[in-house]
């Protein structure tokens, strides 16, 4: 570990950081964009990688769960004062944009129901199910991103799914009987 000898270290750090950024920026942006407007999503990416730049020695392998955990805290600071219904409106607005799943498929009502059901979850439960279903993380990676133990994450995810199933009753039952979901998942980001 060296904290001085700046020139050599800066060059090595810069190269390592650039590799990290190019490999992970899309996943961090996807995470932020799913939860915020485009301009805020870019700010979250900038803040997240600024932290990674300062703490490069602490960034583990694989880095994405750590980065998403950092992005989660950055985003929380930025949206803390916003009202829940405003977040929901933003998501619904995103769905109404050209080319979004709601326009491409006739089942937008179901999508809206899912979003509304998500919005009624506690923040932790919502984040748990979104990390898995939207950001494509497995249990261990999602737990790292959520900043909790794997056991705690499993409990959160279990409760989130249970609450969603309760809220989405007819939809969930419909697919439980063998019908596919109304629209195809549009995933982006890491699939670990």
């Amino acid at each position, binding site marked *: 570990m060296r904290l001085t000898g700046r020139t050599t270290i800066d060059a090595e750090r810069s190269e390592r950081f650039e590799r990290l950024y190019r490999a992970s920026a899309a996943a961090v942006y996807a995470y932020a964009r799913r939860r915020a407007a485009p301009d805020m999503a870019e700010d979250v990416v900038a803040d997240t990688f600024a932290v990674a730049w300062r703490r490069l020695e602490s960034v583990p392998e694989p880095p994405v769960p750590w980065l998403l955990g950092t992005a989660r805290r950055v985003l929380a600071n930025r949206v803390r004062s916003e009202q829940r219904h405003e977040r929901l409106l933003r998501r619904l607005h995103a769905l109404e944009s050209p080319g979004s*799943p709601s326009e491409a498929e006739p089942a937008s009502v179901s999508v809206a129901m899912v979003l509304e059901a998500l919005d009624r979850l506690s923040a932790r439960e919502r984040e748990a199910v979104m990390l898995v279903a939207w950001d494509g993380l497995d249990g261990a990676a999602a737990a790292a991103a959520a900043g909790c133990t794997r056991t705690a994450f499993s409990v959160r995810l279990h409760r989130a799914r249970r609450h969603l199933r309760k809220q989405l009753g007819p939809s969930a039952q419909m697919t439980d009987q063998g019908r*596919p979901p109304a629209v195809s998942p549009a995933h982006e980001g890491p699939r670990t």
Partner: protein
Amino acid sequence: MTMESPVGGETIDSLVGAADPLEPGSAVSWAASPAAEAILRRVLAEPLIAARPRVSGALVAVGFAAALALASGTVVAAVHLLGGPAPPQVTRDLSAVDQGMPGDLRYNPDVSHARLVAVAGTSSMYAADLAGGGYCGELVVQGRAAGAICVTALSLAAHPVQVSVPFSEPITPRSPVTVGGRVTLPAATAVVLRYADGGIDRASLTSGYYVIEVTAPHLGSVHAADFSLRVVDAAGSTLEELTVPAVMEEAPPPSNSIDATTISDSSDFTKVLGVDGHVPASATSLVLRFPDGRDLQVRLQPDHSFHLDIPADLQRAFAVRPGLLVARDAAGDIIATQAIESVAAARAAGM
């Protein structure tokens, strides 16, 4: 616990996945865009220094805090001429922000040009610029320097409203309260404090800086309840509003947690010389886990206190990464943990 069947979980996940608002491929496209490249270049250009600790949410720096209690010197008379030079005590404090810090973590404020940037009553604020933007600032309240804080350009961009509320202990309902900071919102012209008792104090911005002394009738209110800080434009419209926590003594740590203090000196803030504190009453053993995974047993006293002098060859172990104090009960179960890090690591963390 009844665990969910895989089929049920997958069904719900599929429904949620179908509601993903992100267009396929859009994040990958963004990562190849000029905007993404600009962020990379901006971050790489950021000096390896960190923002000061944030207290809560968008409220960036209700800082200074105990710094006033620690500040030993007093400043003779403030020169109430905006732009005038900072007094020696302030320049010493601004120079000291990098004391004991490794080169990569230094702010390097332009202390030679430290100047008075805002005044209210007996309170003054001085600032020195950082290369590339940002600043180090210090409030002087009733002749006492409150300790310097530094805010990088990146933090300013992310948090355009900076708030500091220095105080000295003990805090009483009549203790004076000064609120100071900097606003970088382009249209901002003034800052307005609104207290829980309905009272208002305000100050105009001078080059973005402000200082407000809470007027006497409202001191009881700010010591008892949170209050709001609004940034307004020339028309009086609110540009940003924050909640400032009530200025009161910190609550004692919960009895089921480890209360730990690291021991350092200003010669080298990458070192942790020792750790002391208290463990929960049910703790029977305490271990300090180093970042490399090695454990060091910590002796507990009958009153549940502990003190550990860290061997010289391990004092830099926490320079970059944190360690962990782990308390266990008689059954060997972990009942509390507490992260341990150096002052330099805390600066580097930045959040």
